[in-house]
Protein backbone atom coordinates (compact mmCIF):
# COMPACT_ATOMS: atom_id res chain seq x y z
CA UNK A 1 0.00 0.00 0.00
CA UNK A 2 1.25 3.45 -0.87
CA UNK A 3 0.84 6.59 1.13
CA UNK A 4 1.47 10.12 -0.15
CA UNK A 5 3.68 12.20 2.13
CA UNK A 6 4.32 15.93 2.27
CA UNK A 7 6.95 16.93 4.81
CA UNK A 8 8.51 20.27 5.70
CA UNK A 9 12.22 19.56 5.61
CA UNK A 10 15.08 22.07 5.94
CA UNK A 11 12.94 24.93 4.64
CA UNK A 12 11.52 22.91 1.76
CA UNK A 13 8.21 21.15 1.29
CA UNK A 14 9.08 17.69 0.02
CA UNK A 15 6.61 15.33 -1.63
CA UNK A 16 7.19 11.65 -1.23
CA UNK A 17 5.70 8.18 -1.21
CA UNK A 18 5.76 5.56 1.49
CA UNK A 19 5.40 1.91 0.52
CA UNK A 20 4.34 -0.11 3.52
CA UNK A 21 2.25 -3.24 3.85
CA UNK A 22 0.52 -1.97 6.95
CA UNK A 23 1.31 1.67 7.56
CA UNK A 24 1.74 2.28 11.24
CA UNK A 25 0.76 5.62 12.67
CA UNK A 26 3.85 7.75 13.18
CA UNK A 27 5.09 7.37 16.73
CA UNK A 28 7.25 9.74 18.64
CA UNK A 29 9.58 9.19 21.54
CA UNK A 30 9.92 5.46 20.94
CA UNK A 31 12.35 3.56 18.75
CA UNK A 32 11.51 0.30 17.05
CA UNK A 33 13.78 -2.19 15.33
CA UNK A 34 12.25 -1.40 11.96
CA UNK A 35 14.67 -0.48 9.21
CA UNK A 36 13.46 1.75 6.42
CA UNK A 37 14.77 2.28 2.91
CA UNK A 38 14.99 5.69 1.23
CA UNK A 39 15.42 5.81 -2.55
CA UNK A 40 16.63 8.92 -4.36
CA UNK A 41 15.90 9.79 -7.96
CA UNK A 42 18.25 11.75 -10.15
CA UNK A 43 18.11 15.02 -12.04
CA UNK A 44 14.89 15.90 -13.76
CA UNK A 45 13.25 12.54 -13.14
CA UNK A 46 10.32 12.33 -10.74
CA UNK A 47 10.61 9.96 -7.81
CA UNK A 48 9.26 6.91 -9.65
CA UNK A 49 12.33 7.15 -11.99
CA UNK A 50 12.42 6.37 -15.70
CA UNK A 51 10.40 3.27 -16.51
CA UNK A 52 9.09 3.36 -12.92
CA UNK A 53 12.18 1.50 -11.77
CA UNK A 54 12.21 3.26 -8.40
CA UNK A 55 8.60 2.43 -7.61
CA UNK A 56 9.04 -1.19 -8.72
CA UNK A 57 12.04 -1.63 -6.37
CA UNK A 58 10.03 -0.03 -3.56
CA UNK A 59 7.10 -2.40 -4.23
CA UNK A 60 9.45 -5.37 -3.88
CA UNK A 61 10.95 -4.10 -0.63
CA UNK A 62 7.49 -3.39 0.73
CA UNK A 63 6.54 -7.01 -0.03
CA UNK A 64 9.55 -8.10 2.03
CA UNK A 65 8.39 -5.97 4.94
CA UNK A 66 10.68 -2.94 4.63
CA UNK A 67 8.94 0.43 4.77
CA UNK A 68 10.33 2.19 1.70
CA UNK A 69 10.33 5.90 0.99
CA UNK A 70 10.85 7.78 -2.25
CA UNK A 71 11.09 11.57 -2.25
CA UNK A 72 11.32 14.39 -4.77
CA UNK A 73 14.08 16.83 -3.86
CA UNK A 74 13.38 20.61 -4.00
CA UNK A 75 12.17 21.81 -7.41
CA UNK A 76 11.89 18.27 -8.79
CA UNK A 77 8.84 16.10 -9.29
CA UNK A 78 6.03 17.37 -7.10
CA UNK A 79 8.24 19.25 -4.62
CA UNK A 80 8.20 23.05 -4.96
CA UNK A 81 11.49 24.87 -5.46
CA UNK A 82 13.66 26.55 -8.03
CA UNK A 83 15.94 24.74 -10.46
CA UNK A 84 18.18 25.99 -13.28
CA UNK A 85 17.04 26.40 -16.89
CA UNK A 86 19.49 23.85 -18.28
CA UNK A 87 19.69 20.18 -17.46
CA UNK A 88 23.46 20.10 -17.27
CA UNK A 89 23.43 22.87 -14.67
CA UNK A 90 20.93 20.90 -12.63
CA UNK A 91 23.10 17.79 -12.85
CA UNK A 92 26.21 19.75 -11.88
CA UNK A 93 24.46 21.18 -8.83
CA UNK A 94 23.18 17.79 -7.70
CA UNK A 95 26.53 16.06 -8.16
CA UNK A 96 28.17 18.86 -6.19
CA UNK A 97 25.88 18.17 -3.26
CA UNK A 98 22.98 20.59 -3.72
CA UNK A 99 20.61 18.08 -2.10
CA UNK A 100 22.88 17.03 0.75
CA UNK A 101 21.46 19.32 3.43
CA UNK A 102 17.88 18.38 2.57
CA UNK A 103 18.82 14.69 2.52
CA UNK A 104 20.42 14.78 5.99
CA UNK A 105 17.37 16.56 7.40
CA UNK A 106 15.01 14.17 5.61
CA UNK A 107 16.79 11.08 6.99
CA UNK A 108 16.63 12.45 10.52
CA UNK A 109 12.97 13.34 10.14
CA UNK A 110 11.95 9.95 8.73
CA UNK A 111 13.77 8.03 11.45
CA UNK A 112 12.14 10.14 14.15
CA UNK A 113 8.69 10.40 12.58
CA UNK A 114 8.33 6.69 11.82
CA UNK A 115 10.29 5.46 14.84
CA UNK A 116 12.82 3.61 12.74
CA UNK A 117 16.06 2.10 13.88
CA UNK A 118 17.72 3.57 10.83
CA UNK A 119 17.71 3.85 7.06
CA UNK A 120 19.33 2.21 4.09
CA UNK A 121 19.76 5.05 1.60
CA UNK A 122 19.89 4.31 -2.10
CA UNK A 123 19.71 6.07 -5.41
CA UNK A 124 20.17 5.86 -9.12
CA UNK A 125 22.93 7.60 -11.13
CA UNK A 126 23.36 11.06 -9.55
CA UNK A 127 20.77 10.02 -6.97
CA UNK A 128 23.34 7.44 -5.89
CA UNK A 129 25.81 10.29 -5.42
CA UNK A 130 23.30 12.15 -3.24
CA UNK A 131 22.67 8.91 -1.32
CA UNK A 132 26.41 8.57 -0.76
CA UNK A 133 26.54 12.10 0.69
CA UNK A 134 24.22 10.84 3.43
CA UNK A 135 27.31 9.29 4.92
CA UNK A 136 28.90 12.72 5.45
CA UNK A 137 26.58 13.30 8.40
CA UNK A 138 28.29 10.34 10.09
CA UNK A 139 24.90 9.58 11.55
CA UNK A 140 24.54 6.15 13.14
CA UNK A 141 21.08 6.08 11.61
CA UNK A 142 22.52 5.53 8.12
CA UNK A 143 22.82 1.77 8.10
CA UNK A 144 23.59 0.96 4.48
CA UNK A 145 23.88 2.24 0.92
CA UNK A 146 22.48 1.05 -2.38
CA UNK A 147 24.22 2.72 -5.32
CA UNK A 148 22.72 2.02 -8.74
CA UNK A 149 24.87 3.15 -11.66
CA UNK A 150 26.70 5.77 -9.55
CA UNK A 151 28.14 8.66 -11.53
CA UNK A 152 31.74 9.55 -10.69
CA UNK A 153 32.29 12.41 -13.14
CA UNK A 154 31.21 16.01 -12.64
CA UNK A 155 29.27 17.66 -15.45
CA UNK A 156 30.94 20.50 -17.29
CA UNK A 157 28.73 23.45 -18.14
CA UNK A 158 29.23 26.78 -19.82
CA UNK A 159 27.70 28.81 -17.00
CA UNK A 160 28.69 29.65 -13.45
CA UNK A 161 27.53 27.53 -10.56
CA UNK A 162 24.11 28.18 -9.11
CA UNK A 163 24.39 25.46 -6.51
CA UNK A 164 22.44 26.17 -3.37
CA UNK A 165 25.33 24.86 -1.30
CA UNK A 166 28.78 26.09 -2.31
CA UNK A 167 31.12 23.18 -2.89
CA UNK A 168 34.28 23.12 -0.78
CA UNK A 169 37.63 23.65 -2.42
CA UNK A 170 38.60 20.52 -4.26
CA UNK A 171 41.76 19.73 -6.14
CA UNK A 172 40.69 18.41 -9.48
CA UNK A 173 44.03 17.96 -11.20
CA UNK A 174 47.75 18.49 -10.81
CA UNK A 175 47.60 21.37 -13.26
CA UNK A 176 44.97 23.17 -11.24
CA UNK A 177 46.96 22.71 -8.02
CA UNK A 178 50.10 24.06 -9.63
CA UNK A 179 48.16 26.97 -11.07
CA UNK A 180 46.78 27.97 -7.67
CA UNK A 181 50.17 27.60 -6.01
CA UNK A 182 51.94 29.58 -8.71
CA UNK A 183 49.46 32.45 -8.39
CA UNK A 184 49.82 32.56 -4.64
CA UNK A 185 53.61 32.17 -4.52
CA UNK A 186 54.17 34.83 -7.21
CA UNK A 187 51.88 37.29 -5.52
CA UNK A 188 53.72 39.91 -3.41
CA UNK A 189 50.43 40.80 -1.82
CA UNK A 190 49.97 37.21 -0.77
CA UNK A 191 53.44 37.12 0.88
CA UNK A 192 52.82 40.48 2.56
CA UNK A 193 49.57 39.21 4.04
CA UNK A 194 51.28 36.01 5.19
CA UNK A 195 54.14 37.90 6.92
CA UNK A 196 51.71 40.26 8.61
CA UNK A 197 49.75 37.30 9.82
CA UNK A 198 46.71 38.35 7.78
CA UNK A 199 46.90 35.52 5.30
CA UNK A 200 43.75 33.51 4.64
CA UNK A 201 45.02 30.48 6.46
CA UNK A 202 41.80 28.68 5.73
CA UNK A 203 42.64 28.74 2.04
CA UNK A 204 46.19 27.46 2.59
CA UNK A 205 44.93 24.85 4.97
CA UNK A 206 42.43 23.56 2.46
CA UNK A 207 44.97 23.72 -0.32
CA UNK A 208 47.62 21.78 1.57
CA UNK A 209 45.04 19.31 2.77
CA UNK A 210 43.93 18.87 -0.82
CA UNK A 211 47.51 18.40 -1.97
CA UNK A 212 48.23 15.95 0.82
CA UNK A 213 45.06 14.04 0.07
CA UNK A 214 45.91 14.01 -3.61
CA UNK A 215 49.46 12.84 -2.96
CA UNK A 216 48.33 10.15 -0.55
CA UNK A 217 45.82 8.90 -3.05
CA UNK A 218 48.46 8.82 -5.74
CA UNK A 219 50.86 6.95 -3.50
CA UNK A 220 48.21 4.49 -2.48
CA UNK A 221 47.53 3.84 -6.14
CA UNK A 222 51.10 2.81 -6.88
CA UNK A 223 51.11 -0.71 -8.17
CA UNK A 224 47.36 -0.72 -8.75
CA UNK A 225 46.93 1.93 -11.42
CA UNK A 226 49.22 4.15 -13.35
CA UNK A 227 47.03 6.97 -14.57
CA UNK A 228 45.91 10.02 -12.61
CA UNK A 229 42.21 10.39 -11.98
CA UNK A 230 40.45 12.21 -14.80
CA UNK A 231 40.14 15.98 -14.27
CA UNK A 232 36.33 15.81 -14.11
CA UNK A 233 36.48 13.42 -11.14
CA UNK A 234 34.00 14.21 -8.41
CA UNK A 235 36.47 14.02 -5.53
CA UNK A 236 33.84 14.95 -3.02
CA UNK A 237 31.84 11.92 -4.04
CA UNK A 238 34.88 9.63 -4.02
CA UNK A 239 35.80 10.90 -0.55
CA UNK A 240 32.32 10.03 0.67
CA UNK A 241 32.73 6.60 -0.90
CA UNK A 242 36.06 6.12 0.88
CA UNK A 243 34.48 7.24 4.13
CA UNK A 244 31.67 4.70 3.71
CA UNK A 245 34.24 1.99 3.15
CA UNK A 246 36.35 3.08 6.11
CA UNK A 247 33.25 3.04 8.32
CA UNK A 248 32.36 -0.38 6.89
CA UNK A 249 28.89 0.77 5.96
CA UNK A 250 27.32 -2.16 4.06
CA UNK A 251 27.16 -0.99 0.45
CA UNK A 252 25.63 -2.53 -2.63
CA UNK A 253 26.69 -1.21 -6.04
CA UNK A 254 24.79 -2.33 -9.13
CA UNK A 255 26.16 -1.18 -12.46
CA UNK A 256 25.88 -1.98 -16.14
CA UNK A 257 28.28 -4.75 -17.08
CA UNK A 258 29.36 -3.55 -20.48
CA UNK A 259 33.08 -3.15 -21.34
CA UNK A 260 32.70 0.62 -21.71
CA UNK A 261 31.04 1.05 -18.35
CA UNK A 262 33.66 -1.12 -16.67
CA UNK A 263 36.42 1.01 -18.19
CA UNK A 264 34.62 4.10 -16.94
CA UNK A 265 34.74 2.91 -13.33
CA UNK A 266 38.29 1.62 -13.69
CA UNK A 267 39.38 5.10 -14.84
CA UNK A 268 38.38 6.36 -11.40
CA UNK A 269 40.31 3.67 -9.58
CA UNK A 270 37.31 1.46 -8.86
CA UNK A 271 36.96 -2.23 -9.52
CA UNK A 272 33.50 -2.94 -10.89
CA UNK A 273 32.06 -6.35 -10.18
CA UNK A 274 34.56 -7.04 -7.39
CA UNK A 275 33.28 -7.43 -3.85
CA UNK A 276 35.35 -6.22 -0.93
CA UNK A 277 34.28 -8.04 2.20
CA UNK A 278 36.73 -6.06 4.31
CA UNK A 279 34.82 -2.86 3.69
CA UNK A 280 31.40 -4.54 3.35
CA UNK A 281 31.12 -3.68 -0.34
CA UNK A 282 29.25 -5.84 -2.81
CA UNK A 283 29.34 -4.90 -6.50
CA UNK A 284 27.10 -6.56 -9.05
CA UNK A 285 27.23 -5.99 -12.79
CA UNK A 286 24.19 -6.52 -15.00
CA UNK A 287 25.15 -7.41 -18.55
CA UNK A 288 23.43 -6.38 -21.77
CA UNK A 289 21.49 -3.38 -20.58
CA UNK A 290 21.72 0.40 -20.77
CA UNK A 291 22.39 3.06 -18.16
CA UNK A 292 18.67 3.30 -17.31
CA UNK A 293 18.81 -0.39 -16.31
CA UNK A 294 15.42 -1.21 -17.78
CA UNK A 295 15.98 -3.16 -20.95
CA UNK A 296 17.13 -6.77 -21.29
CA UNK A 297 15.46 -7.84 -18.06
CA UNK A 298 17.51 -5.38 -15.99
CA UNK A 299 14.47 -3.83 -14.30
CA UNK A 300 13.65 -7.20 -12.73
CA UNK A 301 17.27 -8.01 -11.99
CA UNK A 302 17.97 -4.74 -10.18
CA UNK A 303 14.91 -5.25 -8.00
CA UNK A 304 15.89 -8.84 -7.19
CA UNK A 305 19.50 -8.02 -6.32
CA UNK A 306 18.49 -5.07 -4.14
CA UNK A 307 15.84 -7.07 -2.35
CA UNK A 308 18.20 -10.02 -1.77
CA UNK A 309 21.03 -7.81 -0.54
CA UNK A 310 18.85 -5.87 1.90
CA UNK A 311 17.26 -9.08 3.22
CA UNK A 312 20.69 -10.60 3.75
CA UNK A 313 22.30 -7.59 5.41
CA UNK A 314 19.31 -6.33 7.37
CA UNK A 315 17.22 -9.43 8.13
CA UNK A 316 13.72 -8.81 9.35
CA UNK A 317 14.20 -11.28 12.17
CA UNK A 318 15.72 -8.49 14.17
CA UNK A 319 12.71 -6.24 13.69
CA UNK A 320 9.65 -6.15 15.87
CA UNK A 321 7.08 -5.90 13.13
Amino acid at each position, binding site marked *: *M*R*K*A*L*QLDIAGH*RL*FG*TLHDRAPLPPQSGTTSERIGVLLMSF*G*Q*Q*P*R*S*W*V*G*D*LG*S*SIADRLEEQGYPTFRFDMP*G*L*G*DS*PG*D*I*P*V*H*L*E*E*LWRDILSGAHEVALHALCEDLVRRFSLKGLVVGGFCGGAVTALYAINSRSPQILGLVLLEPEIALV*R*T*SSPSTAATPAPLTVDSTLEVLDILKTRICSLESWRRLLKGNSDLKFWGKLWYGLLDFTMRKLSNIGRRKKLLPPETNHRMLNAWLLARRLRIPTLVVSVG*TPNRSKYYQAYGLQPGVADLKSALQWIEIP*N*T*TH*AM*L*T*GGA*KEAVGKYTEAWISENFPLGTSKR
Partner: protein
Amino acid sequence: MVNSPPNDSSMKQSGHEQLEQADYLSVDREQLYYVLHPTTLPLRGRVLLAGPFASERPHRYIPLVRWSRYLANQGFEVMRFDHRGVGESTGRFEDYGFQSWSDDIRHCANWLQSRSPAAPLILHGLGLGALLGDRLFEQGLADIFLAWLPPKSAREMLYEQLKLKMSNNYTLPSSERKTRDQYVADLERGEIVEVEGHNWTPRLWAEAAEYAFGENNPSDPSPGTSPRPRHTAELDALATHTFGGVGPNPLRVPGSGPAMRLVNPDLSQSFDTASAWLNEAVSKAGGNRNA
Protein backbone atom coordinates in the same frame (compact mmCIF):
# COMPACT_ATOMS: atom_id res chain seq x y z
CA MET B 1 18.43 34.70 -26.63
CA VAL B 2 18.18 34.88 -22.87
CA ASN B 3 15.99 32.55 -20.90
CA SER B 4 15.96 32.84 -17.17
CA PRO B 5 14.27 30.53 -14.67
CA PRO B 6 10.54 31.11 -14.33
CA ASN B 7 9.77 33.64 -11.67
CA ASP B 8 7.67 31.77 -9.14
CA SER B 9 7.90 34.46 -6.48
CA SER B 10 4.32 35.63 -6.95
CA MET B 11 3.11 32.06 -6.43
CA LYS B 12 5.17 31.65 -3.27
CA GLN B 13 3.91 34.91 -1.88
CA SER B 14 0.30 33.99 -2.47
CA GLY B 15 0.87 30.59 -0.89
CA HIS B 16 -0.57 28.41 -3.66
CA GLU B 17 2.31 25.94 -3.41
CA GLN B 18 1.77 25.51 0.31
CA LEU B 19 -1.78 24.35 -0.42
CA GLU B 20 -0.81 21.61 -2.89
CA GLN B 21 -1.93 18.20 -1.72
CA ALA B 22 -1.06 14.73 -2.96
CA ASP B 23 -3.24 11.73 -2.20
CA TYR B 24 -4.84 8.64 -3.68
CA LEU B 25 -8.27 7.79 -5.04
CA SER B 26 -9.43 4.20 -4.93
CA VAL B 27 -10.26 2.72 -8.35
CA ASP B 28 -11.03 -0.99 -8.70
CA ARG B 29 -8.81 -1.97 -5.77
CA GLU B 30 -5.92 0.11 -7.08
CA GLN B 31 -4.62 3.45 -5.80
CA LEU B 32 -4.81 6.32 -8.27
CA TYR B 33 -2.30 9.05 -7.39
CA TYR B 34 -3.26 12.68 -7.80
CA VAL B 35 -2.01 16.11 -6.85
CA LEU B 36 -4.44 18.94 -6.29
CA HIS B 37 -3.33 22.54 -6.82
CA PRO B 38 -5.93 24.71 -5.10
CA THR B 39 -6.16 28.43 -5.68
CA THR B 40 -6.63 31.20 -3.16
CA LEU B 41 -8.08 33.50 -5.83
CA PRO B 42 -11.76 33.66 -6.83
CA LEU B 43 -12.36 30.32 -8.56
CA ARG B 44 -12.59 30.59 -12.36
CA GLY B 45 -12.75 26.90 -13.14
CA ARG B 46 -11.40 23.45 -12.39
CA VAL B 47 -8.78 21.96 -14.68
CA LEU B 48 -8.27 18.21 -14.97
CA LEU B 49 -4.83 17.72 -16.46
CA ALA B 50 -4.44 14.38 -18.24
CA GLY B 51 -0.77 13.72 -18.89
CA PRO B 52 1.26 11.95 -21.56
CA PHE B 53 2.04 8.27 -22.18
CA ALA B 54 4.07 6.32 -19.60
CA SER B 55 7.43 6.56 -21.38
CA GLU B 56 7.05 10.33 -21.88
CA ARG B 57 5.87 11.05 -18.35
CA PRO B 58 9.26 11.48 -16.62
CA HIS B 59 10.48 13.87 -19.31
CA ARG B 60 7.40 16.15 -19.23
CA TYR B 61 6.85 16.16 -15.49
CA ILE B 62 8.58 19.40 -14.51
CA PRO B 63 6.91 21.64 -17.14
CA LEU B 64 3.51 20.11 -16.35
CA VAL B 65 3.92 20.84 -12.66
CA ARG B 66 5.00 24.41 -13.48
CA TRP B 67 1.95 24.82 -15.73
CA SER B 68 -0.32 23.55 -12.94
CA ARG B 69 1.15 26.10 -10.54
CA TYR B 70 0.77 28.85 -13.09
CA LEU B 71 -2.93 28.00 -13.52
CA ALA B 72 -3.48 27.91 -9.75
CA ASN B 73 -1.96 31.38 -9.68
CA GLN B 74 -4.53 32.46 -12.28
CA GLY B 75 -7.58 31.35 -10.30
CA PHE B 76 -7.93 27.75 -11.54
CA GLU B 77 -7.99 24.69 -9.31
CA VAL B 78 -5.89 22.03 -11.00
CA MET B 79 -5.87 18.28 -10.56
CA ARG B 80 -3.21 16.11 -12.20
CA PHE B 81 -2.86 12.37 -11.78
CA ASP B 82 -1.05 9.21 -12.83
CA HIS B 83 -2.89 6.54 -14.77
CA ARG B 84 -3.12 3.12 -13.16
CA GLY B 85 0.04 1.10 -13.70
CA VAL B 86 2.15 4.24 -14.19
CA GLY B 87 4.24 6.48 -11.91
CA GLU B 88 2.87 6.88 -8.41
CA SER B 89 -0.36 4.98 -9.07
CA THR B 90 -0.43 1.29 -8.25
CA GLY B 91 -1.08 -1.61 -10.60
CA ARG B 92 0.92 -3.42 -13.27
CA PHE B 93 1.28 -1.48 -16.51
CA GLU B 94 0.53 -4.57 -18.57
CA ASP B 95 -2.90 -4.96 -16.94
CA TYR B 96 -4.14 -1.65 -18.35
CA GLY B 97 -4.79 0.02 -21.67
CA PHE B 98 -6.50 2.92 -23.35
CA GLN B 99 -9.96 2.01 -22.09
CA SER B 100 -8.94 1.75 -18.45
CA TRP B 101 -6.90 4.95 -18.71
CA SER B 102 -10.01 6.68 -20.11
CA ASP B 103 -11.89 5.37 -17.09
CA ASP B 104 -9.22 6.95 -14.87
CA ILE B 105 -9.85 10.34 -16.47
CA ARG B 106 -13.59 9.95 -15.99
CA HIS B 107 -13.10 8.92 -12.38
CA CYS B 108 -10.94 11.97 -11.65
CA ALA B 109 -13.36 14.25 -13.49
CA ASN B 110 -16.25 13.02 -11.36
CA TRP B 111 -14.24 13.53 -8.19
CA LEU B 112 -13.18 17.03 -9.21
CA GLN B 113 -16.68 17.99 -10.30
CA SER B 114 -18.10 16.91 -6.96
CA ARG B 115 -16.11 19.59 -5.17
CA SER B 116 -17.76 22.81 -4.17
CA PRO B 117 -18.36 25.50 -5.11
CA ALA B 118 -19.53 24.57 -8.60
CA ALA B 119 -17.28 25.79 -11.39
CA PRO B 120 -16.75 24.97 -15.07
CA LEU B 121 -14.76 21.76 -15.57
CA ILE B 122 -11.93 22.01 -18.07
CA LEU B 123 -10.51 18.80 -19.49
CA HIS B 124 -6.95 19.50 -20.57
CA GLY B 125 -4.80 16.81 -22.15
CA LEU B 126 -1.18 16.53 -23.25
CA GLY B 127 -0.22 13.80 -25.73
CA LEU B 128 -2.05 10.64 -24.66
CA GLY B 129 -4.19 12.77 -22.33
CA ALA B 130 -5.34 14.86 -25.30
CA LEU B 131 -6.13 11.75 -27.33
CA LEU B 132 -8.25 10.15 -24.62
CA GLY B 133 -9.77 13.47 -23.57
CA ASP B 134 -10.97 14.12 -27.11
CA ARG B 135 -13.30 11.12 -27.05
CA LEU B 136 -14.45 11.70 -23.47
CA PHE B 137 -15.28 15.32 -24.22
CA GLU B 138 -17.39 14.30 -27.18
CA GLN B 139 -19.19 11.88 -24.87
CA GLY B 140 -20.17 14.86 -22.75
CA LEU B 141 -17.45 14.96 -20.10
CA ALA B 142 -16.42 18.49 -19.02
CA ASP B 143 -17.46 21.96 -20.18
CA ILE B 144 -14.26 22.89 -22.00
CA PHE B 145 -11.56 20.89 -23.75
CA LEU B 146 -8.01 22.01 -24.37
CA ALA B 147 -5.58 19.69 -26.22
CA TRP B 148 -1.81 20.05 -26.35
CA LEU B 149 0.28 18.07 -28.83
CA PRO B 150 -2.25 15.30 -29.51
CA PRO B 151 -0.96 12.36 -31.56
CA LYS B 152 -2.96 11.60 -34.70
CA SER B 153 -3.81 8.21 -33.28
CA ALA B 154 -2.86 5.86 -30.47
CA ARG B 155 -1.09 3.57 -32.92
CA GLU B 156 0.97 6.44 -34.29
CA MET B 157 1.91 7.39 -30.73
CA LEU B 158 3.02 3.85 -29.88
CA TYR B 159 4.91 3.54 -33.17
CA GLU B 160 6.76 6.76 -32.31
CA GLN B 161 7.58 5.49 -28.82
CA LEU B 162 9.12 2.34 -30.33
CA LYS B 163 12.03 4.58 -31.33
CA LEU B 164 13.12 4.37 -27.70
CA LYS B 165 13.37 0.60 -28.03
CA MET B 166 15.38 0.97 -31.21
CA SER B 167 17.84 3.45 -29.70
CA ASN B 168 18.38 1.20 -26.69
CA ASN B 169 19.03 -1.75 -28.96
CA TYR B 170 21.62 0.07 -30.98
CA THR B 171 23.68 0.95 -27.91
CA LEU B 172 24.01 -2.70 -26.97
CA PRO B 173 26.28 -4.86 -29.10
CA SER B 174 24.55 -8.12 -28.24
CA SER B 175 21.00 -6.86 -28.50
CA GLU B 176 18.47 -7.83 -31.13
CA ARG B 177 18.26 -5.69 -34.25
CA LYS B 178 14.59 -5.46 -35.08
CA THR B 179 12.75 -2.75 -36.94
CA ARG B 180 9.70 -1.06 -35.50
CA ASP B 181 7.52 -3.00 -37.94
CA GLN B 182 8.98 -6.24 -36.64
CA TYR B 183 8.07 -5.26 -33.08
CA VAL B 184 4.56 -4.43 -34.27
CA ALA B 185 4.42 -7.87 -35.88
CA ASP B 186 5.51 -9.40 -32.56
CA LEU B 187 2.66 -7.61 -30.79
CA GLU B 188 0.19 -8.75 -33.42
CA ARG B 189 1.44 -12.31 -32.97
CA GLY B 190 0.57 -12.08 -29.29
CA GLU B 191 4.02 -11.40 -27.83
CA ILE B 192 4.88 -8.89 -25.12
CA VAL B 193 7.38 -6.16 -26.02
CA GLU B 194 9.27 -4.28 -23.28
CA VAL B 195 9.74 -0.58 -24.00
CA GLU B 196 11.49 1.70 -21.47
CA GLY B 197 10.68 -0.62 -18.59
CA HIS B 198 7.01 -1.07 -19.47
CA ASN B 199 5.63 -4.28 -20.93
CA TRP B 200 3.44 -3.58 -23.95
CA THR B 201 0.82 -6.22 -24.42
CA PRO B 202 -0.96 -7.36 -27.60
CA ARG B 203 -4.14 -5.99 -26.01
CA LEU B 204 -2.59 -2.52 -25.74
CA TRP B 205 -1.73 -2.58 -29.43
CA ALA B 206 -5.17 -3.90 -30.37
CA GLU B 207 -6.97 -1.25 -28.33
CA ALA B 208 -4.79 1.44 -29.90
CA ALA B 209 -6.51 0.84 -33.24
CA GLU B 210 -9.70 2.29 -31.80
CA TYR B 211 -8.31 5.69 -30.80
CA ALA B 212 -7.73 8.56 -33.23
CA PHE B 213 -7.72 12.26 -32.46
CA GLY B 214 -10.59 14.35 -33.81
CA GLU B 215 -12.43 11.42 -35.35
CA ASN B 216 -15.58 12.21 -33.40
CA ASN B 217 -17.62 15.03 -34.84
CA PRO B 218 -18.59 17.60 -32.27
CA SER B 219 -22.05 16.79 -31.03
CA ASP B 220 -24.81 19.15 -32.02
CA PRO B 221 -25.41 21.70 -29.36
CA SER B 222 -28.78 21.97 -27.74
CA PRO B 223 -31.03 24.56 -29.35
CA GLY B 224 -30.21 28.02 -28.11
CA THR B 225 -26.71 27.11 -26.96
CA SER B 226 -23.36 27.26 -28.70
CA PRO B 227 -20.94 24.31 -28.89
CA ARG B 228 -18.86 23.71 -25.81
CA PRO B 229 -15.46 25.36 -26.25
CA ARG B 230 -12.69 23.07 -27.48
CA HIS B 231 -9.28 23.98 -28.76
CA THR B 232 -6.13 22.29 -30.00
CA ALA B 233 -3.42 24.78 -29.12
CA GLU B 234 -0.56 25.63 -31.45
CA LEU B 235 2.36 25.76 -29.05
CA ASP B 236 5.44 27.80 -29.90
CA ALA B 237 8.78 26.12 -30.64
CA LEU B 238 10.01 26.36 -27.05
CA ALA B 239 6.86 24.83 -25.55
CA THR B 240 6.70 22.17 -28.27
CA HIS B 241 10.29 21.22 -27.53
CA THR B 242 9.70 21.19 -23.78
CA PHE B 243 6.34 19.43 -23.69
CA GLY B 244 6.74 17.21 -26.72
CA GLY B 245 10.44 16.70 -27.19
CA VAL B 246 9.95 17.85 -30.78
CA GLY B 247 12.57 19.87 -32.65
CA PRO B 248 15.96 21.19 -31.55
CA ASN B 249 16.50 23.35 -28.48
CA PRO B 250 15.26 26.78 -29.65
CA LEU B 251 17.49 28.56 -27.13
CA ARG B 252 20.67 26.99 -28.42
CA VAL B 253 23.03 29.57 -29.87
CA PRO B 254 25.49 28.01 -32.35
CA GLY B 255 29.08 28.39 -31.17
CA SER B 256 28.05 29.25 -27.63
CA GLY B 257 29.93 26.42 -25.97
CA PRO B 258 28.78 22.95 -25.06
CA ALA B 259 25.23 22.14 -26.06
CA MET B 260 22.96 22.12 -23.04
CA ARG B 261 19.47 20.71 -22.77
CA LEU B 262 16.47 22.48 -21.32
CA VAL B 263 14.85 21.36 -18.12
CA ASN B 264 13.11 24.46 -16.84
CA PRO B 265 12.82 27.17 -19.51
CA ASP B 266 10.66 30.23 -19.12
CA LEU B 267 7.39 29.22 -20.83
CA SER B 268 5.40 32.21 -19.64
CA GLN B 269 4.61 33.28 -23.21
CA SER B 270 2.89 29.98 -24.01
CA PHE B 271 1.30 29.89 -20.57
CA ASP B 272 -0.12 33.41 -21.03
CA THR B 273 -1.59 32.51 -24.42
CA ALA B 274 -3.19 29.29 -23.19
CA SER B 275 -4.47 31.00 -20.06
CA ALA B 276 -6.05 33.78 -22.14
CA TRP B 277 -7.92 31.17 -24.22
CA LEU B 278 -9.08 29.41 -21.05
CA ASN B 279 -10.40 32.65 -19.59
CA GLU B 280 -12.36 33.32 -22.75
CA ALA B 281 -13.67 29.76 -22.85
CA VAL B 282 -14.74 29.92 -19.21
CA SER B 283 -16.76 33.07 -19.92
CA LYS B 284 -18.36 31.32 -22.88
CA ALA B 285 -19.07 28.17 -20.89
CA GLY B 286 -20.59 30.29 -18.14
CA GLY B 287 -22.93 31.81 -20.73
CA ASN B 288 -23.91 28.35 -21.96
CA ARG B 289 -24.59 27.18 -18.41
CA ASN B 290 -26.80 30.17 -17.73
CA ALA B 291 -28.67 29.60 -21.01
